[in-house]
């Protein structure tokens, strides 16, 4: 019997090891798996490379993971979101590394990683500082840079509805990076608001097929980052 359900948040993230690469879903707060991130803070793994479009806000979620000293490198496109205080401070003092990747290149690197494609060419970033040192090739009269597929040891994502096979549907623009991160990680952990019986999700509307999912934890009413930030919350609670 296939049953990917996990009983506790601590068990869901227990084997994330020091030095692991962890993809974390979300674009800003939309789709951020905040309970899984807080479980990773409790778990304490360090020297992590984290892949996310941003660097979180306030002192909760991704920002709190960084503030807790667990992240040695961020791979992202936009580390400067409003309310992002933690990352800039650590970056300026040289305590965290940044690999800046154009957003579409980041998405395609993750997709390629999950699809077994080691590298690809794109015209994005040609003639800019972000192309420096990258292999270039001309196709049909246009220069392109080579970009590598990106894989991870773990992905932490959020969805709206799951069954025990790991078939998923999402909520609006909270989908963003989650489906491709689920493909690119060796172990993908999803937190879902709703768990339904196998067969209850119409196969025509499944967004992430269960083959990409390893662990499912049900969090019926997930916290929203902006509400925690507005309430002045921090994690771990002080």
């Amino acid at each position, binding site marked *: 019997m296939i049953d990917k359900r996990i009983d506790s948040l601590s068990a869901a993230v227990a084997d994330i090891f020091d030095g692991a690469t962890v993809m974390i879903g979300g674009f800003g707060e939309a789709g951020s798996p905040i309970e899984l991130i807080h479980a990773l803070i409790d778990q304490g793994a360090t020297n992590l490379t984290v892949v996310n479009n941003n660097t979180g806000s306030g002192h909760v979620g991704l920002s709190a993971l960084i503030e807790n000293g667990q992240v040695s490198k961020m791979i992202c496109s*936009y580390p400067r979101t409003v309310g992002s205080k933690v*990352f800039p401070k650590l970056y300026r003092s040289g305590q965290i590394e940044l690999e800046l990747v154009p957003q*579409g290149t980041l998405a395609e690197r993750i997709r390629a990683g999950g699809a077994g494609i080691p590298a690809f060419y794109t015209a*994005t970033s040609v*003639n*800019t500082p*972000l192309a420096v040192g990258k292999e270039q090739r001309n196709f049909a009269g246009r220069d392109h840079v080579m970009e590598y597929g990106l894989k991870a040891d773990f992905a932490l994502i959020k969805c709206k509805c799951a069954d025990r096979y790991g078939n998923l549907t999402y909520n*609006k*623009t909270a989908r*963003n990076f989650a489906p491709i991160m689920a493909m690119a990680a060796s172990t993908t952990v999803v937190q879902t608001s709703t768990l339904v019986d196998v067969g209850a999700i119409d196969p025509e509307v499944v967004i992430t097929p269960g083959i990409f999912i390893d662990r499912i934890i049900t969090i019926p009413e997930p916290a929203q980052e902006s509400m925690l930030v507005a309430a002045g919350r921090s994690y771990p609670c002080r």
Partner: protein
Amino acid sequence: MSLTNKPYLGWNRNEMAGRAALDIPDGSYVNLGIGIPEMVARYVPEGREVIYHTENGLLGMGPAPAVGEVDPELINAGKKAVTVIPGASFFHHADSFAMIRGQHIDICVLGAMQVSEQGDLANWSTDEPDAIPAVGGAMDLVAGVKIIYVITQHCTKTGEPKLLKSCSYPLTGKAVVNRIYTDLAVIEVTPDGFEVVDLAPGVSFNYVQERTGSKLQLGLQLTDVKNRHIRL
């Protein structure tokens, strides 16, 4: 006669957005950047159907929601709350940028720090030593979208020209900008450099030239006086 002491010479932000909206054809798929570009959606002329793409995974973006109807999981690329129009669709990030990189989006409207006479765009970094570099989707958009419009003030806050022979800031893309909408003029990027194709009310060609770091050509369209100015 000097016009420099007139405080409101030129188009304001709404009028700049309105002027750009006139040049978005019926049936276009459009991506709007953050700031003045996102105001363009308010001014698309009646009778045109335009679909807005936001790169975080939505085609068919509608206006901001009413107070109390904000959904933190329904946002645009600027991370502001939005709505969806009937016929909208959601998709993941790789599909969203396939729409961009695969040249399926017709027009992108972006802000700028500098634009060169060859259409080079700089809008992501001033290269200052303590700045946090952040690029988002700008490089993908200029590399992939068919037509790139820029909306920007003609000069910086300190009065320096933003339209130049060449950009001093790091580029977002080379030879990518088609047209620039400023508070003073509409300027086409041509193989011969900048060409003024429209002027804001009361603004002369020479006034624009004095505030531009590259030689301007006068476009033929400006001989058609009747259709020159919009009112909002």
